[in-house]
């Protein structure tokens, strides 16, 4: 291990040896399998240059994965769909009380959100991801080229498989109500803590993100709501059940308190929506 990390050089730590536009998914997979460790599937590339040396960059932008479709009772978001598309596409904004557009609307600005993609956000499983937190509450699933379809919750809990390609995210178009809450230090920062809830026919789903670890679902909080114990009890359950950590944005104790408030508020908002 070299002794000198260097700032000026940092941008140049990022290099790409070969850059390819596969014509088909099969070709993309074949390229990836040759050397999955040193290859990279390119998403929105917003933080690409903060990264590593890549021997082969695989750009999926010509595979038509930027489609938003409603079919077979599902809302399907292609991996190359940008975050800004989530804010503007009527099929997304008109569903789930608009939380998929709402949850990404704080991220930097429109030029950023025109680059950042659903695939990049979900596949990377960043702890601070607003989108994965919201999708978890919507009980979404991911479709992988090799791994096939699996629940997002399962995908989030497993280690990143660099030899697979995320094709799309699917959300059952079941008309569930949903709400999203977050606290940020500055309005365009990553969340200090985020919470999302959804409700369908009296069955609730709760997720908490930016703990600062990856977003997870909180079953005890959902149970409180299912059993009619109220939003405050659900908030407290989320604070008690999940683990919270300290990073440069906030301390664990503060995050725990926020979890109680944000889960409660999201649940209350959802109850209001249900009434409406």
């Amino acid at each position, binding site marked *: 291990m*070299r*002794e*000198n*990390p*260097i*700032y*000026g*050089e*940092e*941008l*140049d*730590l990022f290099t790409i040896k070969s850059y390819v536009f596969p014509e088909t998914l099969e070709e993309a997979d074949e390229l990836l399998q040759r050397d999955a460790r040193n290859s990279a599937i390119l998403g929105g590339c917003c933080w690409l240059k903060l990264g590593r040396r890549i021997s082969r960059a695989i750009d999926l932008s010509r595979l038509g994965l930027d489609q938003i479709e409603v079919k077979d009772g599902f809302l399907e978001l292609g991996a190359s769909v940008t975050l800004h598309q989530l804010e503007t596409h009527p099929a997304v904004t008109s569903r789930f009380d608009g939380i998929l557009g709402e949850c990404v609307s704080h991220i930097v*600005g429109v030029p950023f959100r025109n680059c950042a993609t659903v695939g990049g956000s979900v596949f990377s499983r960043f702890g601070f991801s607003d989108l994965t937190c919201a999708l978890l509450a919507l009980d979404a699933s991911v479709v992988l080229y090799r791994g096939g379809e699996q629940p997002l919750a399962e995908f989030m809990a497993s280690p990143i498989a660099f030899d697979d390609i995320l094709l799309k995210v699917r959300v059952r178009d079941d008309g569930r109500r949903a709400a999203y809450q977050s*606290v940020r*230090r*500055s*309005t*365009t*920062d*990553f969340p*200090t803590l985020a919470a999302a809830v959804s409700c369908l026919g009296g069955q609730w789903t709760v997720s908490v993100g930016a703990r600062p670890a990856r977003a997870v679902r909180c079953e005890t909080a959902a149970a409180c709501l299912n059993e009619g114990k109220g939003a405050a009890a659900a908030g407290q359950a989320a604070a008690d059940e999940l683990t919270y950590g300290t990073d*440069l944005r*906030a*301390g664990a*104790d*503060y995050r725990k*308190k*926020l979890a109680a*408030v*944000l889960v409660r508020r999201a649940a209350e908002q959802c109850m209001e929506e249900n009434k409406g």
Partner: protein
Amino acid sequence: MNLKYVNQAIPKLDGAALTGGKGVYTEDMVPRDCLVVQVLRSPHAHARIKSIRKDAASRVPGISCILTWEDVPQIRYTLAGQSYPEPSPYDRYILERTVRYVGDPVAIVAGRDKDCVARAMRMIQVKYDILEPVLDFETALDNPIVVHPEEDYFHHFDIGGDQKRNLVSSGCDSDGDVEAALAACDVVVDRTYYTKANAQAMMETFRTYTYLDYNRRLNVVTSTQVPFHCRRTIARALGLPKNMVRVVKPRIGGGFGAKQTLVSELFPALVTLRTGKPAKIVYTRKESFQASNSRHQMRVHVKVGAMKDGTIKAVDMHALSNAGAYGEHASTTIGLVGHKSIPLYARQAAFRFSWDVVYTNTMAAGAFRGYGATQGCFAMESAINELAEKLNMDPAQLRLMNLPHVGENMAAYYNEPLTSCKLPQCIERGMEMIGWKGKYPCVKVDDHRVRGVGMAVTMQGSGISAIDTASVTIKLNDDGYYTLMIGATDMGTGCDTILAQMAAEILNCPMERITVDGVDTDHSPFDTGSYASSTTYVTGAAVVKACTELGEKIAAEGARRLNIHPERAEFDGDRVYDRTNPENAVTLDKLAQDLVVGEGTQWLTATASHCSPTSPPPFMAGFAEVEVDLETGETRVVDYVGVVDCGTVVNKNLARVQAEGGIAQGIGMALLEDINYDPKGQMVNSTFMTYKIPCRTDVPEIRVDFEESYEPNGPFGAKSIGEVVINTPSPAIAQAVYNATGVRVRSLPITAEKILMGREI
């Protein structure tokens, strides 16, 4: 006074070029065959270099040179852009065997392109003896770890430092018996406040390119606020005669004090000297955060005592400042902590202001808008707000009854007289604008949201008394237009424009007839540079002198050509005429042409210098209204009102934008900007991802108004505006948060976490 150009809202002369995206900044002008320079930096906060192996790296194709501590002049210098002899200690080499913070330069690498430089940088092998760092500025004084043990450490004059104790500077200034006065007070507030090492975060990072001209002189094109200090320091650090260095300042993408210290200049300069080739360096954002300079982190202890009626009788302040690894601006920023905050309350009070500035193994601090006054304002104004509460008085009333009066000497402000002040009017106007009467102290919005209001006042200076010097040359060209030559550095603030406005006013001509350009030390007249809120006041006065003189010369030359007594000649801007017979006239065009051809030619120019014995303070009252979510601690500034007395407003738009921008930076300092180091001394907030400066949605639509006094010593009655505007937000917002929540946050920034966790205690 009937003013045509001064006191108007005139667009910036360079506005069309800037908004048109023209290539007017340093990096846009770099010659094509320029070497790329990068700096290998220390990953350790404190270490001694055992060995550097660079042979393999030197063989990378395209590499021109790799310089290490063995290759640089062993000359101590300071990077501070201050007038000679600088008060800052000479405590740096370009590269040194000892590294004192994470980011200290270890090697300079130059090559054909960034790829080969990057490859070479990876191949340089450095072995360090890692030393324990001193990172906490509160334990630095007399710490066994000494940051600057070197023998050749040098001061021009005593600034109360002792390098063996990690003490850069210390001192005390007082008037009256503070202990006795405090003992006699009915009420005393005794509190300690903390401020952070904020980053200036101008949008254009540090960058420089250098080349040798046909005379083998070193030309340095750089984004700097201090071209003349730059020339002197580059010559010293490189061991060159001053006449072999020329510095050019093009348009600058912001400075805010960061560029009052040399940062990037010496690296390409040394490469150019060694290779004979042009060289450039462009700092990354991370380098700008981690390896430049910042605001001085401070702890300020304030004791302020008053009688029951609110008369303040004693102010005792001690400030501890973190210089970081090098002492640039250390002894001077600390002075402003007390000297710009205590005078507002020392009219009837004994005062004492004492200070210590210490070295640590963190990045060196430097100049940042406000320059210590900002830190002092947070402490002093917060203490005054706490005092008002103890006295059960309205904080505005408490201030109004203690402020200094025009005509009096201010003992706590270097005994300078107060010659203009409309601060009371600023306070009253601000209260009216924010709706103080209806909103103080707080208004409940709903079950979990409360709005609170808070206020603060402040003063700054206008240039450094008896030091800051500006020279101006104005030339009458053939065809009757003028060239205004200045050494003051427009860094986006618009000083080229406001100085041209003054010239247009004096010479009574349209703005179009005046051209102004950037600074070139070979051609521009001497100016200490744009810092210490000096440009409008000091350089402006030199403009007035020079233009007045040129106007007189034009009238005299006109008289000569009209064959009349000079006293009968009148110059109205367009022509010189005989006052007793206005028909007898010569136009400026004609005169200007005649002056440069044939017999009796007399090309007309005027040069004037100015240095002010005093530094008349501008004033400001700031009012914040915040909304706090009591359940999360989230705080939003929903309204901010700033009312400024900067004397005569020279340019209504530019002064307003200066104030709005300064307030926004102040809001960032109050709520968001949070430099932290990890236990090994690595800065952890060194990108815009982690160091949040306010974006559009973080600030309200800031509201600014002016109460214009007339400063008798200023050009057209003007004082300064650039710095005073950043000071009030921190204390005003802290008080507004307190009024909304009952939580006093005395340590910046005021985060949601501190508010919420504070409520629980």
